[in-house]
């Protein structure tokens, strides 16, 4: 199963949401939707109208910059990264 790594800004918003979670999914968006089923509201924190990835978040699949449609393999690692910004 793909291995999803989430940013630390996300986990305090949802009870029991770990930084690292495995989900059965064929694409990045499907993985996010699977997480939404367990933690309602989580999709909205990553995906905006479009659907599109929120502007200051990046996703990487197996170390390569990815998008919502990027396929996931059985052993893929999906990193959701919050941009280094703010002040």
């Amino acid at each position, binding site marked *: 199963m793909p291995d999803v790594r989430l940013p630390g800004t996300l986990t305090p918003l949802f009870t029991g949401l770990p930084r690292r979670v495995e989900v059965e999914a064929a694409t990045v968006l499907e993985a996010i939707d699977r997480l939404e089923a367990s933690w309602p509201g989580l999709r909205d924190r990553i995906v905006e109208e479009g659907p599109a990835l929120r502007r200051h*978040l990046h996703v990487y699949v197996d170390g390569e910059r990815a998008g919502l449609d990027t396929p996931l393999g059985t052993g893929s690692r999906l990193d959701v990264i919050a941009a280094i910004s703010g002040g």
Partner: protein
Amino acid sequence: MTRTLLIVGTRKGAFLLESEDRRDWQLRGPFCEGWPVYHAIFDPGSGSIYAAAASEWHGSAVWRSRDLGESWELSSEGLSYGDEDGRKVSKVSTLAVAGDRLLVGAEAPGIFESRDGGATWSLLSTLAGQPGSESWDDPAHQPPGHLGISGFVTDTGDSDRFFTVVQGVGAFETEDGGTSWTPRNRGLRRDWPAEHEEVGFCVHKLVRSPDSRRMYQQNHVGMHRSDDSGQTWSEITEGLPGDFGFAAAAHPHDKETFYVIPVDGGHGRTMHDGKAAVWRTRDGGSSWQDLRKGLPQEDAHLGVLRQGMAIDGADVPGLYVGTSTGQVFASADEGDTWNEIVSYLPSISSVDVAIVD
């Protein structure tokens, strides 16, 4: 024993200040995980606190606490223009309670409502069809700050009747709960050319006096007053140190008494001459008095935003001002004297006040 509760929205979360005597205050927070809070309010009907917030990473949501800040949840379910519309909710800017509905104003300009205390939301209106509304989403027509819907004034006697403000466009009133709207900008000053007679005004803050016919507004160009529930406006700037400001508050018991905070209208947008003052009229704007006792009078370049001043409903009302440099000033005597009750909060966007048990 009752307590006075201040709900303070800042660029780094919400804070609460509590006092039994309006002189000694205890601070709690930050709440809302440090998200930028644009407006935080107390709903006397439900006893809940709501905070409209927008994270640059994680989008817009309304946070809610049903236990005076002990625990918090957030929701943005339904707070969206959908995947087909082409518009996006970049932030939620302002909140109000209208009867059993909670309203939140968004950018791009639109009003969402919740009928379950902020758990779920649905789009109420985008004010589509109003003059010029087709260009509101055009970046070339958007004002700096980009709040979209920047204010509400509700009517305690009729929850279907309320005003909203579209930033840089003007005030609008609905009498049917948000289905249809009428521009309410007649008589306002406008120092620039406009494409439409009824819109194109810069209403910063709209408030209602205890007499619902008497309203006041701080505009980009001048203070204005209405004696006919916003149907027509006349300017009452004379006697103030400038015509620009954001915050405004109406006395809860006297329709002639009203407070404003003039600031420099250029890039600075801080109080005039580096001397902090709140200005009060007791005669509906015919004359103005500056209130400075206890406020800093040297090197005090303080800004206060449109939701940054609140007034409580006590017999002798208390006033509360939050600055863009993180101070909160409080007065327990209608503004005659002031105390700095907290000094080092993040930049303050809003202050609301409630009396709680």
